[in-house]
């Protein structure tokens, strides 16, 4: 099982879209995938076709150790993957966790118990450095950073890189940035092309080859409770995410200690 956080300290950059579409793309490639929604907004939950208002158990119960992942997970009806859902209740977990022991490693312990059930776990982190994000980062093998190619996007990135360095030093020495994914990309906008080039120059092969274009079908899909990959598989956005899933699967294979032999 490889665990990846989808993180960026800037909001509205397409984290949730990346999480659910990468999950659906990996599922199409026959990988067993679990999505963990760590954002109290519950957008990844809703975008996977699960009503956040109707959750019996959620990631909140996993963090407070009221329930295990095997009891909390639900199948995304159209996505082909499992989901640990979140809703506003999760915002309270932040406060409740502070007084508890292993507060930043609760998710990691819970995931270890289902290590053989999944090839990939994708954690949708909230856009803040909180105990929730720390639980995500201390569980993960790597971080995937979705980024819009805009000037201020780079500033948010340096904050995130600092956070990751700290987590790497103090909580999780295995953590690394797997790559930066360029999302909502519009090649007609000169500034986006320039920032895209800067990213390549600065981060080299840490920038994924796949670029996710700005695509209206990806934006429409959540209101139908589906990842774009399932909602309109022929759309440019969906196809880009399937390409990205292929690239991720290859990078995850390369991360492993040894090939199949």
């Amino acid at each position, binding site marked *: 099982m490889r665990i990846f956080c989808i993180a960026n300290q800037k909001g509205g950059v397409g984290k949730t879209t990346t999480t659910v579409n990468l999950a659906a793309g990996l599922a199409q490639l026959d990988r067993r995938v679990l999505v963990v929604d760590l954002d109290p907004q519950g957008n990844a939950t809703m975008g996977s076709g699960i009503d956040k208002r109707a959750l019996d158990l959620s990631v909140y119960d996993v963090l407070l150790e009221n329930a295990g992942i*095997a009891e909390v997970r639900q199948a995304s009806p159209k996505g082909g993957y499992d989901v640990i859902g979140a809703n506003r209740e999760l915002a309270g977990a932040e406060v409740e966790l502070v007084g508890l022991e292993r507060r930043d490693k609760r998710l990691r312990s819970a995931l270890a*118990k289902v290590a053989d*059930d999944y*090839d990939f776990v994708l954690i949708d982190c909230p856009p803040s450095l909180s105990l929730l994000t720390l639980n995500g980062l201390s569980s993960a093998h790597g971080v995937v950073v979705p980024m819009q190619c805009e000037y201020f996007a780079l500033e948010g990135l340096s904050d995130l890189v600092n956070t990751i360095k700290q987590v790497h030093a103090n909580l999780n020495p295995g953590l690394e940035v797997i790559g930066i994914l360029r999302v909502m990309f519009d090649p007609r906008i000169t500034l986006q092309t320039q920032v895209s080039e800067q990213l390549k120059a600065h981060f080299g092969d840490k920038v994924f080859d796949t670029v996710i274009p700005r695509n209206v079908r990806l934006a429409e899909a959540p209101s139908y409770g589906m990842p774009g990959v399932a909602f309109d598989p022929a759309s440019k956005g969906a196809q880009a995410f399937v390409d990205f899933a292929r690239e991720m699967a290859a990078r995850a294979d390369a991360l492993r200690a040894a090939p199949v*032999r």
Partner: protein
Amino acid sequence: MTADGFDDGWLARIEEAGLNASTPREQRVIDGWLVRLAPGKAKRARSIQPVAPGRLGIDKKLALCLPLFAAAELPPIVRITPFAQPARLDEHLAEVGMTRFDDSLVMVLPSLDGIASTGTFDSGAASLETVDARSFAAWVGAARGSSAREVAAHADRIANAPVPHHALALRDRDGVVVCGGQVAVEGSLAGLYDVFTLGEARGRGLADRLCRHLLGHARRLGASAGYLQVDAANAGARRLYRRLGFRDAYPYHYRTPAAAV
């Protein structure tokens, strides 16, 4: 037909599912018989499957089929199940001097409800992951001492099978795959295939856990019952499958001209 009182119609469906899961590209229909000519190790994909009686009579049919095996440089083999057609085919083949070999069994698990795929192999030390057809065929081929031609045929057959296959591989702490297997899912039926444990890793319950994960995954994909084919002389494997709840359903064997044994 069977001691255990399974419904004949259901067992006939199991037999068909087994045929569908192992369909090679190299298949002809000769007067109601499927003639399979894949150059792999699995005899089910390089033998005559006498599924329908046809009109020509057994000897005329054989006269049409045998040259196809010669042209493919494969020994001619007929697979005899309780469903083989026409009636008395097995007796007839015995009379013309074809030798019986490799007595085998189909075992079935009428319900997957009791199969729980939760829980992990000793966590941290081992990992279970999905592998693609080519990697899986290479691993299981090496484990069984298959030739390069057999491995290529196996990979080709699973990658192009009309029924999707899902392969899992279990790595030990050194990253070496020590146990692997596949499940082929057709509607409600899940077939276990190519379950194998390396000699030095046997006797630790790895295959038992692996099969539970394969069947658990099949269940998530909509399967409700399991089947498998096993060498009747392989007491260890039969014990493993009985522990999982599988029961003997019907026997089958092969016949070949004496010179080819």
